[in-house]
Protein backbone atom coordinates (compact mmCIF):
# COMPACT_ATOMS: atom_id res chain seq x y z
CA UNK A 1 0.00 0.00 0.00
CA UNK A 2 1.33 3.42 -0.93
CA UNK A 3 0.63 6.07 1.66
CA UNK A 4 0.97 9.64 0.47
CA UNK A 5 1.42 12.42 3.00
CA UNK A 6 -1.04 14.99 1.79
CA UNK A 7 -3.10 17.42 3.85
CA UNK A 8 -6.67 16.54 4.67
CA UNK A 9 -9.10 17.61 1.90
CA UNK A 10 -10.99 20.01 4.17
CA UNK A 11 -7.80 21.94 4.95
CA UNK A 12 -7.35 24.34 2.08
CA UNK A 13 -4.69 26.67 3.41
CA UNK A 14 -1.46 25.89 5.14
CA UNK A 15 -2.13 27.12 8.65
CA UNK A 16 0.42 26.52 11.35
CA UNK A 17 0.93 28.20 14.67
CA UNK A 18 4.39 29.36 13.57
CA UNK A 19 2.91 31.05 10.48
CA UNK A 20 0.12 32.68 12.49
CA UNK A 21 2.66 34.03 14.96
CA UNK A 22 4.92 35.17 12.14
CA UNK A 23 2.01 37.11 10.59
CA UNK A 24 1.26 38.73 13.95
CA UNK A 25 4.95 39.64 14.33
CA UNK A 26 4.89 41.22 10.86
CA UNK A 27 1.74 43.14 11.82
CA UNK A 28 3.56 44.46 14.89
CA UNK A 29 6.41 45.99 12.87
CA UNK A 30 4.51 49.13 11.64
CA UNK A 31 3.68 50.31 15.19
CA UNK A 32 7.39 49.93 15.96
CA UNK A 33 8.24 52.19 13.02
CA UNK A 34 5.83 54.78 14.36
CA UNK A 35 7.36 54.45 17.83
CA UNK A 36 10.83 55.07 16.38
CA UNK A 37 9.44 58.07 14.48
CA UNK A 38 7.89 59.59 17.62
CA UNK A 39 10.41 58.63 20.31
CA UNK A 40 13.66 57.87 18.51
CA UNK A 41 16.00 54.91 18.52
CA UNK A 42 15.36 54.16 22.22
CA UNK A 43 12.03 52.54 21.41
CA UNK A 44 13.78 50.18 19.00
CA UNK A 45 16.36 49.24 21.65
CA UNK A 46 13.54 48.70 24.13
CA UNK A 47 11.79 46.37 21.70
CA UNK A 48 14.97 44.46 20.81
CA UNK A 49 15.91 43.87 24.46
CA UNK A 50 12.39 42.77 25.39
CA UNK A 51 12.21 40.34 22.48
CA UNK A 52 15.66 39.03 23.38
CA UNK A 53 14.60 38.49 27.00
CA UNK A 54 11.47 36.65 25.84
CA UNK A 55 13.43 34.48 23.42
CA UNK A 56 16.16 33.55 25.88
CA UNK A 57 13.58 32.74 28.58
CA UNK A 58 11.66 30.62 26.06
CA UNK A 59 14.78 28.67 25.13
CA UNK A 60 15.81 28.13 28.75
CA UNK A 61 12.27 27.07 29.69
CA UNK A 62 12.18 24.64 26.74
CA UNK A 63 15.41 23.06 27.91
CA UNK A 64 14.14 22.96 31.49
CA UNK A 65 10.99 21.17 30.33
CA UNK A 66 13.08 18.57 28.56
CA UNK A 67 12.22 19.71 25.05
CA UNK A 68 14.72 20.89 22.51
CA UNK A 69 14.94 24.53 21.55
CA UNK A 70 12.12 25.30 19.12
CA UNK A 71 13.83 27.78 16.81
CA UNK A 72 10.79 28.13 14.57
CA UNK A 73 8.52 29.28 17.43
CA UNK A 74 7.81 32.99 16.88
CA UNK A 75 5.40 33.33 19.81
CA UNK A 76 8.02 34.75 22.23
CA UNK A 77 8.89 37.37 19.61
CA UNK A 78 5.22 38.40 19.48
CA UNK A 79 5.01 38.45 23.29
CA UNK A 80 8.14 40.59 23.55
CA UNK A 81 6.97 43.01 20.86
CA UNK A 82 3.53 43.44 22.43
CA UNK A 83 5.03 44.08 25.86
CA UNK A 84 7.49 46.64 24.49
CA UNK A 85 4.81 48.49 22.51
CA UNK A 86 2.57 48.76 25.55
CA UNK A 87 5.27 50.54 27.56
CA UNK A 88 6.15 54.23 27.76
CA UNK A 89 9.23 54.94 25.63
CA UNK A 90 11.02 56.33 28.69
CA UNK A 91 10.68 53.19 30.81
CA UNK A 92 13.90 51.67 32.24
CA UNK A 93 14.98 48.69 30.14
CA UNK A 94 14.70 46.14 32.91
CA UNK A 95 10.94 46.60 33.40
CA UNK A 96 9.75 45.30 29.98
CA UNK A 97 12.45 42.63 30.15
CA UNK A 98 11.08 41.49 33.51
CA UNK A 99 7.57 41.48 32.09
CA UNK A 100 8.77 39.27 29.22
CA UNK A 101 10.54 36.86 31.59
CA UNK A 102 7.43 36.66 33.79
CA UNK A 103 5.19 36.14 30.77
CA UNK A 104 7.19 33.23 29.42
CA UNK A 105 8.50 31.58 32.57
CA UNK A 106 5.50 31.94 34.87
CA UNK A 107 2.47 32.21 32.57
CA UNK A 108 3.38 30.22 29.50
CA UNK A 109 5.61 27.29 30.42
CA UNK A 110 3.98 25.92 33.57
CA UNK A 111 0.89 25.23 31.43
CA UNK A 112 2.85 23.36 28.77
CA UNK A 113 4.40 26.01 26.54
CA UNK A 114 3.26 27.38 23.22
CA UNK A 115 -0.37 26.65 22.41
CA UNK A 116 -1.33 25.58 25.92
CA UNK A 117 -1.35 28.81 27.90
CA UNK A 118 -4.60 29.64 29.72
CA UNK A 119 -3.84 33.34 30.04
CA UNK A 120 -2.37 35.68 27.47
CA UNK A 121 1.34 35.75 28.42
CA UNK A 122 1.93 39.35 27.33
CA UNK A 123 -1.14 40.53 29.28
CA UNK A 124 0.00 38.68 32.40
CA UNK A 125 3.52 40.10 32.10
CA UNK A 126 2.11 43.60 31.74
CA UNK A 127 -0.21 43.08 34.71
CA UNK A 128 2.73 41.95 36.85
CA UNK A 129 4.87 44.99 36.08
CA UNK A 130 1.84 47.28 36.46
CA UNK A 131 1.38 46.04 40.02
CA UNK A 132 5.12 46.20 40.77
CA UNK A 133 6.11 49.42 39.00
CA UNK A 134 2.79 51.25 38.62
CA UNK A 135 4.16 54.77 39.04
CA UNK A 136 6.85 54.30 36.39
CA UNK A 137 4.25 53.10 33.89
CA UNK A 138 1.86 56.00 34.36
CA UNK A 139 4.10 58.79 33.00
CA UNK A 140 4.70 59.15 29.26
CA UNK A 141 7.23 61.26 27.34
CA UNK A 142 6.02 63.83 24.84
CA UNK A 143 6.07 62.53 21.23
CA UNK A 144 8.39 63.99 18.55
CA UNK A 145 11.05 64.58 21.18
CA UNK A 146 13.54 61.77 20.49
CA UNK A 147 14.92 60.13 23.61
CA UNK A 148 18.50 59.07 24.16
CA UNK A 149 19.24 55.54 25.32
CA UNK A 150 19.83 56.69 28.88
CA UNK A 151 16.81 58.55 30.20
CA UNK A 152 17.45 60.84 33.15
CA UNK A 153 15.19 62.98 35.31
CA UNK A 154 15.26 65.88 32.86
CA UNK A 155 12.85 64.07 30.52
CA UNK A 156 9.41 65.55 31.03
CA UNK A 157 6.73 62.93 31.65
CA UNK A 158 3.02 63.65 31.30
CA UNK A 159 -0.17 61.73 31.92
CA UNK A 160 -1.92 59.95 29.09
CA UNK A 161 -5.51 60.72 27.98
CA UNK A 162 -6.76 57.47 29.56
CA UNK A 163 -5.64 58.63 33.01
CA UNK A 164 -7.22 62.06 32.42
CA UNK A 165 -10.52 60.41 31.42
CA UNK A 166 -10.41 58.22 34.52
CA UNK A 167 -10.06 61.30 36.70
CA UNK A 168 -13.30 62.66 35.23
CA UNK A 169 -11.69 65.35 33.08
CA UNK A 170 -11.62 65.69 29.29
CA UNK A 171 -8.24 65.48 27.53
CA UNK A 172 -7.54 68.45 25.26
CA UNK A 173 -6.27 66.75 22.13
CA UNK A 174 -7.30 67.76 18.63
CA UNK A 175 -8.86 65.23 16.23
CA UNK A 176 -5.81 65.40 13.95
CA UNK A 177 -3.47 64.60 16.80
CA UNK A 178 -5.73 61.75 17.89
CA UNK A 179 -5.77 60.31 14.36
CA UNK A 180 -1.99 60.60 13.99
CA UNK A 181 -1.26 59.26 17.46
CA UNK A 182 0.61 62.45 18.28
CA UNK A 183 -0.14 62.45 21.99
CA UNK A 184 1.46 60.99 25.12
CA UNK A 185 0.81 57.33 25.70
CA UNK A 186 2.28 53.85 25.43
CA UNK A 187 4.70 53.99 22.51
CA UNK A 188 2.87 51.61 20.17
CA UNK A 189 -0.77 52.01 21.06
CA UNK A 190 -1.52 55.61 20.17
CA UNK A 191 -1.28 55.20 16.38
CA UNK A 192 -4.86 54.15 15.72
CA UNK A 193 -4.67 54.38 11.92
CA UNK A 194 -1.56 52.19 11.78
CA UNK A 195 -3.16 49.64 14.11
CA UNK A 196 -6.31 49.66 11.95
CA UNK A 197 -4.18 49.01 8.85
CA UNK A 198 -2.48 46.11 10.63
CA UNK A 199 -5.91 44.75 11.54
CA UNK A 200 -6.80 44.76 7.84
CA UNK A 201 -3.60 42.82 7.10
CA UNK A 202 -4.44 40.24 9.77
CA UNK A 203 -8.00 39.95 8.43
CA UNK A 204 -6.73 39.42 4.89
CA UNK A 205 -4.32 36.77 6.13
CA UNK A 206 -7.29 35.15 7.94
CA UNK A 207 -5.46 35.19 11.26
CA UNK A 208 -8.20 37.24 12.88
CA UNK A 209 -11.94 36.75 12.65
CA UNK A 210 -13.57 40.12 12.03
CA UNK A 211 -16.36 39.60 14.51
CA UNK A 212 -14.01 39.32 17.53
CA UNK A 213 -12.58 42.88 17.49
CA UNK A 214 -15.92 44.13 16.14
CA UNK A 215 -17.87 42.68 19.07
CA UNK A 216 -15.32 44.01 21.56
CA UNK A 217 -15.10 47.51 20.11
CA UNK A 218 -18.88 47.59 19.55
CA UNK A 219 -19.51 46.86 23.23
CA UNK A 220 -17.03 49.59 24.21
CA UNK A 221 -18.80 52.04 21.85
CA UNK A 222 -22.21 51.24 23.34
CA UNK A 223 -20.89 51.86 26.85
CA UNK A 224 -19.08 55.04 25.81
CA UNK A 225 -22.18 56.43 24.08
CA UNK A 226 -24.35 55.78 27.14
CA UNK A 227 -22.01 56.77 29.97
CA UNK A 228 -19.93 59.86 29.26
CA UNK A 229 -18.94 63.26 30.56
CA UNK A 230 -21.63 65.95 30.48
CA UNK A 231 -19.51 68.36 28.42
CA UNK A 232 -18.97 66.03 25.49
CA UNK A 233 -21.31 64.28 23.10
CA UNK A 234 -21.72 60.57 22.54
CA UNK A 235 -19.57 60.51 19.39
CA UNK A 236 -16.72 62.40 21.03
CA UNK A 237 -16.88 60.07 24.00
CA UNK A 238 -16.66 57.01 21.72
CA UNK A 239 -13.61 58.41 19.90
CA UNK A 240 -11.87 59.30 23.15
CA UNK A 241 -12.51 55.89 24.69
CA UNK A 242 -11.26 54.10 21.58
CA UNK A 243 -8.17 56.21 21.10
CA UNK A 244 -7.10 56.83 24.69
CA UNK A 245 -5.13 54.07 26.35
CA UNK A 246 -4.41 50.71 24.84
CA UNK A 247 -7.92 49.51 24.04
CA UNK A 248 -7.56 49.35 20.25
CA UNK A 249 -4.16 47.66 20.50
CA UNK A 250 -5.54 45.04 22.89
CA UNK A 251 -8.51 44.45 20.55
CA UNK A 252 -6.28 43.78 17.53
CA UNK A 253 -3.27 41.93 18.94
CA UNK A 254 -4.17 40.44 22.30
CA UNK A 255 -7.88 39.65 22.29
CA UNK A 256 -7.54 37.78 18.99
CA UNK A 257 -4.78 35.46 20.22
CA UNK A 258 -5.91 32.03 18.94
CA UNK A 259 -4.74 30.09 22.02
CA UNK A 260 -6.86 31.91 24.58
CA UNK A 261 -9.85 32.51 22.32
CA UNK A 262 -12.82 30.13 22.57
CA UNK A 263 -13.11 27.71 19.67
CA UNK A 264 -16.71 28.24 18.51
CA UNK A 265 -17.69 31.45 16.62
CA UNK A 266 -20.65 32.27 18.88
CA UNK A 267 -18.49 31.65 21.95
CA UNK A 268 -15.89 34.04 20.51
CA UNK A 269 -18.51 36.76 20.19
CA UNK A 270 -19.71 36.25 23.77
CA UNK A 271 -16.10 36.29 24.90
CA UNK A 272 -15.36 39.56 23.11
CA UNK A 273 -18.55 41.19 24.41
CA UNK A 274 -17.72 40.12 27.99
CA UNK A 275 -14.17 41.44 27.60
CA UNK A 276 -15.63 44.76 26.39
CA UNK A 277 -18.02 45.02 29.32
CA UNK A 278 -15.30 44.17 31.86
CA UNK A 279 -12.92 46.66 30.23
CA UNK A 280 -15.42 49.49 30.51
CA UNK A 281 -16.29 48.56 34.11
CA UNK A 282 -12.59 48.60 34.96
CA UNK A 283 -12.24 51.95 33.20
CA UNK A 284 -15.13 53.52 35.07
CA UNK A 285 -14.77 51.94 38.50
CA UNK A 286 -11.30 50.37 38.63
CA UNK A 287 -8.16 51.94 40.02
CA UNK A 288 -5.66 50.02 37.91
CA UNK A 289 -3.68 51.20 34.93
CA UNK A 290 -4.10 49.15 31.70
CA UNK A 291 -7.74 48.33 32.38
CA UNK A 292 -8.06 46.51 29.02
CA UNK A 293 -5.20 44.19 29.93
CA UNK A 294 -6.67 43.27 33.32
CA UNK A 295 -10.10 42.81 31.75
CA UNK A 296 -8.58 40.50 29.15
CA UNK A 297 -6.88 38.40 31.83
CA UNK A 298 -10.13 38.07 33.74
CA UNK A 299 -12.01 37.05 30.60
CA UNK A 300 -9.27 34.56 29.65
CA UNK A 301 -10.17 32.54 32.75
CA UNK A 302 -13.74 32.09 31.46
CA UNK A 303 -12.80 31.28 27.86
CA UNK A 304 -13.56 27.51 28.08
CA UNK A 305 -16.85 28.34 29.80
CA UNK A 306 -18.10 30.21 26.72
CA UNK A 307 -17.37 27.20 24.55
CA UNK A 308 -19.13 24.94 27.03
CA UNK A 309 -22.20 27.18 27.21
CA UNK A 310 -22.48 27.47 23.44
CA UNK A 311 -22.11 23.71 23.00
CA UNK A 312 -24.72 23.11 25.68
CA UNK A 313 -27.05 25.65 24.04
CA UNK A 314 -26.62 23.92 20.69
CA UNK A 315 -27.36 20.58 22.29
CA UNK A 316 -30.53 21.86 23.94
CA UNK A 317 -31.66 23.40 20.64
CA UNK A 318 -31.02 20.13 18.84
CA UNK A 319 -32.96 18.18 21.43
CA UNK A 320 -35.89 20.62 21.20
CA UNK A 321 -35.92 20.31 17.43
CA UNK A 322 -35.94 16.54 17.66
CA UNK A 323 -38.76 16.63 20.20
CA UNK A 324 -40.78 18.93 17.90
CA UNK A 325 -40.08 16.66 14.97
CA UNK A 326 -41.22 13.60 16.90
CA UNK A 327 -44.41 15.42 17.98
CA UNK A 328 -45.19 16.36 14.37
CA UNK A 329 -44.79 12.77 13.30
Amino acid sequence: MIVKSKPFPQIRAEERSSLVMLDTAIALIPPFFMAVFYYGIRSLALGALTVLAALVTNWISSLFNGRGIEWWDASPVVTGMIIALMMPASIPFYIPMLAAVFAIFVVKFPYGGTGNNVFNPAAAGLAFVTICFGTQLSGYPTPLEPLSLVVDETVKLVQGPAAILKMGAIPTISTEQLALGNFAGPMGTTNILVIAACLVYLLVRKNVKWYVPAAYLGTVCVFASRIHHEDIGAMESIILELVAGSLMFVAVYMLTEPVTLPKRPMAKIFYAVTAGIVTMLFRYYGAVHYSAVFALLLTNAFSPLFDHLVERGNLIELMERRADHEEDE
Partner: protein
Amino acid sequence: MKKMSKRNYYRRFLSVTKGIFLKNPVLTMGFAVPFVVVATTSLQTAVGLSIGLLLTLVPVGLIMPLLMAKIPQDFQWVDYPLCALIAAFFVLPTRVIVGNISPALMDSVGVYFSLLCVSTLLFAARGKTRKEPDLAKVLLELVKIWIGAAMVLLLVGVVREIFGYGTLWGKALPWVKLRFSGVMVSAFGFILLGFVAALGKKIHRTILAAQIWTARNRGPIKEKLIELAHKMREDEEETPEELPKETVEETSKENQGKEQE
Protein backbone atom coordinates in the same frame (compact mmCIF):
# COMPACT_ATOMS: atom_id res chain seq x y z
CA MET B 1 12.16 -8.24 47.86
CA LYS B 2 12.64 -7.25 51.47
CA LYS B 3 16.34 -6.74 50.81
CA MET B 4 15.51 -4.56 47.81
CA SER B 5 13.09 -2.39 49.77
CA LYS B 6 15.62 -2.05 52.58
CA ARG B 7 18.23 -0.92 50.10
CA ASN B 8 15.86 1.69 48.64
CA TYR B 9 16.79 4.46 51.04
CA TYR B 10 14.76 7.07 49.19
CA ARG B 11 11.51 5.17 49.60
CA ARG B 12 12.30 4.52 53.23
CA PHE B 13 13.03 8.20 53.71
CA LEU B 14 9.68 9.09 52.12
CA SER B 15 7.72 6.63 54.25
CA VAL B 16 9.44 7.78 57.43
CA THR B 17 8.85 11.47 56.62
CA LYS B 18 5.29 10.94 55.36
CA GLY B 19 3.44 14.22 55.89
CA ILE B 20 6.53 16.34 55.36
CA PHE B 21 7.60 15.54 51.81
CA LEU B 22 5.21 12.77 50.76
CA LYS B 23 1.57 13.86 51.18
CA ASN B 24 2.49 17.34 52.34
CA PRO B 25 -0.69 18.86 53.82
CA VAL B 26 -0.38 22.13 51.88
CA LEU B 27 1.30 21.15 48.62
CA THR B 28 -0.36 17.79 48.01
CA MET B 29 -3.57 17.92 50.01
CA GLY B 30 -4.35 21.63 49.58
CA PHE B 31 -5.09 22.34 53.25
CA ALA B 32 -4.48 25.76 54.84
CA VAL B 33 -3.87 27.29 51.40
CA PRO B 34 -5.49 30.68 52.26
CA PHE B 35 -2.99 31.16 55.07
CA VAL B 36 -0.07 30.49 52.77
CA VAL B 37 -1.37 32.50 49.83
CA VAL B 38 -2.88 35.54 51.53
CA ALA B 39 -1.38 35.87 54.99
CA THR B 40 2.21 34.71 54.61
CA THR B 41 3.97 37.79 53.29
CA SER B 42 7.04 37.73 55.52
CA LEU B 43 9.15 35.40 57.63
CA GLN B 44 7.67 36.87 60.82
CA THR B 45 4.15 36.07 59.63
CA ALA B 46 5.23 32.58 58.67
CA VAL B 47 6.75 31.95 62.10
CA GLY B 48 3.67 33.38 63.84
CA LEU B 49 1.33 31.21 61.79
CA SER B 50 3.54 28.15 62.35
CA ILE B 51 3.38 28.65 66.12
CA GLY B 52 -0.37 29.10 65.92
CA LEU B 53 -0.70 25.99 63.78
CA LEU B 54 1.34 23.90 66.21
CA LEU B 55 -0.76 25.06 69.14
CA THR B 56 -4.01 24.24 67.42
CA LEU B 57 -3.14 21.20 65.36
CA VAL B 58 -1.57 19.06 68.11
CA PRO B 59 -4.25 19.54 70.80
CA VAL B 60 -7.09 19.14 68.31
CA GLY B 61 -5.49 16.06 66.78
CA LEU B 62 -4.94 14.47 70.22
CA ILE B 63 -8.15 15.44 71.99
CA MET B 64 -10.64 14.99 69.15
CA PRO B 65 -10.21 11.20 68.66
CA LEU B 66 -10.55 10.66 72.41
CA LEU B 67 -13.70 12.77 72.55
CA MET B 68 -15.19 11.28 69.43
CA ALA B 69 -14.75 7.79 70.90
CA LYS B 70 -17.00 8.82 73.81
CA ILE B 71 -19.65 10.65 71.78
CA PRO B 72 -22.57 8.46 70.61
CA GLN B 73 -23.05 7.85 66.91
CA ASP B 74 -26.14 10.11 66.69
CA PHE B 75 -24.18 13.13 67.90
CA GLN B 76 -21.13 12.72 65.71
CA TRP B 77 -22.09 15.88 63.81
CA VAL B 78 -20.66 17.97 66.65
CA ASP B 79 -17.11 17.22 65.50
CA TYR B 80 -16.68 20.41 63.44
CA PRO B 81 -17.83 22.93 66.07
CA LEU B 82 -16.02 20.96 68.74
CA CYS B 83 -12.85 21.06 66.71
CA ALA B 84 -13.06 24.85 66.35
CA LEU B 85 -13.83 25.25 70.05
CA ILE B 86 -10.81 23.21 71.14
CA ALA B 87 -8.61 25.19 68.74
CA ALA B 88 -9.99 28.49 70.06
CA PHE B 89 -9.36 27.33 73.63
CA PHE B 90 -5.65 27.09 72.83
CA VAL B 91 -5.37 29.97 70.36
CA LEU B 92 -6.72 32.72 72.60
CA PRO B 93 -4.22 32.37 75.49
CA THR B 94 -1.40 31.81 72.98
CA ARG B 95 -2.31 35.03 71.24
CA VAL B 96 -2.03 36.93 74.52
CA ILE B 97 1.25 35.26 75.55
CA VAL B 98 3.00 35.60 72.18
CA GLY B 99 1.58 39.13 71.81
CA ASN B 100 3.26 40.12 75.06
CA ILE B 101 6.57 38.52 74.08
CA SER B 102 6.68 39.83 70.51
CA PRO B 103 3.97 42.36 69.59
CA ALA B 104 5.47 42.79 66.11
CA LEU B 105 4.99 39.10 65.40
CA MET B 106 1.33 39.23 66.36
CA ASP B 107 0.80 42.43 64.37
CA SER B 108 2.24 40.81 61.27
CA VAL B 109 -0.09 37.80 61.58
CA GLY B 110 -3.13 39.91 62.38
CA VAL B 111 -6.57 38.32 62.20
CA TYR B 112 -5.23 35.20 60.53
CA PHE B 113 -3.96 33.87 63.87
CA SER B 114 -7.53 33.61 65.17
CA LEU B 115 -8.75 32.26 61.86
CA LEU B 116 -6.51 29.23 62.39
CA CYS B 117 -9.33 27.85 64.56
CA VAL B 118 -11.34 27.14 61.43
CA SER B 119 -8.47 25.94 59.25
CA THR B 120 -9.19 22.99 56.97
CA LEU B 121 -5.99 21.39 58.22
CA LEU B 122 -7.49 21.04 61.72
CA PHE B 123 -10.64 19.47 60.36
CA ALA B 124 -8.54 17.04 58.35
CA ALA B 125 -6.39 16.15 61.34
CA ARG B 126 -9.26 15.74 63.80
CA GLY B 127 -9.51 11.96 63.21
CA LYS B 128 -12.70 9.97 62.86
CA THR B 129 -11.91 6.74 64.62
CA ARG B 130 -14.20 5.61 67.43
CA LYS B 131 -11.52 3.34 68.83
CA GLU B 132 -9.11 4.86 71.31
CA PRO B 133 -5.99 5.65 69.30
CA ASP B 134 -2.32 5.17 70.09
CA LEU B 135 -1.49 8.68 71.26
CA ALA B 136 2.24 8.42 70.61
CA LYS B 137 1.62 7.47 66.98
CA VAL B 138 -0.97 10.21 66.53
CA LEU B 139 1.39 12.76 68.07
CA LEU B 140 4.19 11.72 65.73
CA GLU B 141 1.90 12.03 62.70
CA LEU B 142 0.64 15.44 63.83
CA VAL B 143 4.18 16.71 64.32
CA LYS B 144 5.10 15.52 60.83
CA ILE B 145 2.04 17.24 59.35
CA TRP B 146 2.95 20.41 61.22
CA ILE B 147 6.56 20.29 59.99
CA GLY B 148 5.28 19.86 56.41
CA ALA B 149 2.92 22.83 56.66
CA ALA B 150 5.43 25.02 58.53
CA MET B 151 8.10 24.26 55.94
CA VAL B 152 5.90 25.59 53.13
CA LEU B 153 4.84 28.60 55.21
CA LEU B 154 8.45 29.52 55.97
CA LEU B 155 9.59 29.02 52.37
CA VAL B 156 6.80 31.18 50.96
CA GLY B 157 7.32 33.79 53.68
CA VAL B 158 11.06 34.04 53.04
CA VAL B 159 10.68 34.34 49.24
CA ARG B 160 7.93 36.96 49.48
CA GLU B 161 9.74 39.03 52.09
CA ILE B 162 13.04 39.03 50.20
CA PHE B 163 11.56 39.94 46.81
CA GLY B 164 8.70 42.09 48.11
CA TYR B 165 10.30 44.15 50.86
CA GLY B 166 14.00 43.45 50.32
CA THR B 167 14.29 42.38 53.96
CA LEU B 168 14.56 39.21 56.04
CA TRP B 169 13.00 39.22 59.51
CA GLY B 170 12.68 42.96 59.13
CA LYS B 171 16.39 43.51 58.43
CA ALA B 172 17.32 45.12 55.12
CA LEU B 173 19.27 42.99 52.66
CA PRO B 174 21.73 45.22 50.78
CA TRP B 175 22.11 42.77 47.87
CA VAL B 176 18.43 43.02 46.96
CA LYS B 177 18.27 45.93 44.54
CA LEU B 178 14.83 45.39 43.02
CA ARG B 179 11.62 45.09 45.00
CA PHE B 180 8.48 43.65 43.47
CA SER B 181 5.34 44.75 45.24
CA GLY B 182 3.43 42.34 43.00
CA VAL B 183 4.88 39.47 45.02
CA MET B 184 2.61 40.48 47.92
CA VAL B 185 -0.57 40.07 45.89
CA SER B 186 -2.59 36.94 46.67
CA ALA B 187 -2.49 35.88 43.02
CA PHE B 188 1.28 35.67 43.23
CA GLY B 189 0.92 33.57 46.39
CA PHE B 190 -0.94 30.99 44.32
CA ILE B 191 1.74 31.13 41.61
CA LEU B 192 4.50 30.70 44.19
CA LEU B 193 2.71 27.80 45.85
CA GLY B 194 2.29 26.16 42.45
CA PHE B 195 5.97 26.58 41.68
CA VAL B 196 7.01 25.13 45.05
CA ALA B 197 4.73 22.12 44.46
CA ALA B 198 6.09 21.70 40.93
CA LEU B 199 9.67 21.94 42.17
CA GLY B 200 9.00 19.26 44.78
CA LYS B 201 7.51 16.99 42.14
CA LYS B 202 10.41 17.62 39.79
CA ILE B 203 12.95 16.66 42.49
CA HIS B 204 10.91 13.52 43.31
CA ARG B 205 10.75 12.48 39.65
CA THR B 206 14.45 13.18 39.10
CA ILE B 207 15.40 10.94 42.03
CA LEU B 208 13.05 8.19 40.80
CA ALA B 209 14.45 8.49 37.27
CA ALA B 210 18.00 8.27 38.63
CA GLN B 211 17.05 5.17 40.61
CA ILE B 212 15.53 3.51 37.54
CA TRP B 213 18.58 4.39 35.45
CA THR B 214 21.00 2.90 37.97
CA ALA B 215 18.79 -0.20 38.38
CA ARG B 216 18.72 -0.73 34.62
CA ASN B 217 22.42 -0.15 34.12
CA ARG B 218 23.53 -2.26 37.03
CA GLY B 219 22.80 -5.55 35.19
CA PRO B 220 24.53 -4.93 31.84
CA ILE B 221 27.65 -3.45 33.45
CA LYS B 222 28.04 -6.50 35.64
CA GLU B 223 27.53 -8.78 32.65
CA LYS B 224 30.02 -6.80 30.61
CA LEU B 225 32.63 -7.11 33.36
CA ILE B 226 32.09 -10.89 33.50
CA GLU B 227 32.36 -11.06 29.70
CA LEU B 228 35.56 -9.04 29.81
CA ALA B 229 37.04 -11.35 32.45
CA HIS B 230 36.14 -14.40 30.34
CA LYS B 231 37.73 -12.84 27.27
CA MET B 232 40.91 -12.05 29.17
CA ARG B 233 41.16 -15.68 30.34
CA GLU B 234 40.59 -16.97 26.82
CA ASP B 235 43.23 -14.61 25.47
CA GLU B 236 45.72 -15.88 28.03
CA GLU B 237 45.00 -19.46 26.98
CA GLU B 238 45.21 -18.67 23.27
CA THR B 239 48.56 -16.79 23.36
CA PRO B 240 50.86 -19.80 22.41
CA GLU B 241 48.91 -20.34 19.19
CA GLU B 242 49.18 -16.73 18.26
CA LEU B 243 52.97 -16.56 18.65
CA PRO B 244 54.97 -15.90 15.46
CA LYS B 245 56.05 -18.97 13.48
CA GLU B 246 59.77 -18.37 14.01
CA THR B 247 59.52 -18.35 17.78
CA VAL B 248 57.31 -21.43 17.70
CA GLU B 249 59.90 -23.25 15.57
CA GLU B 250 62.72 -22.13 17.87
CA THR B 251 60.92 -23.34 20.96
CA SER B 252 60.06 -26.66 19.28
CA LYS B 253 63.76 -27.15 18.27
CA GLU B 254 64.86 -26.38 21.81
CA ASN B 255 62.34 -28.88 23.13
CA GLN B 256 63.58 -31.52 20.62
CA GLY B 257 67.23 -30.91 21.68
CA LYS B 258 66.30 -31.29 25.32
CA GLU B 259 64.48 -34.53 24.57
CA GLN B 260 67.59 -35.93 22.62
CA GLU B 261 69.86 -35.00 25.52
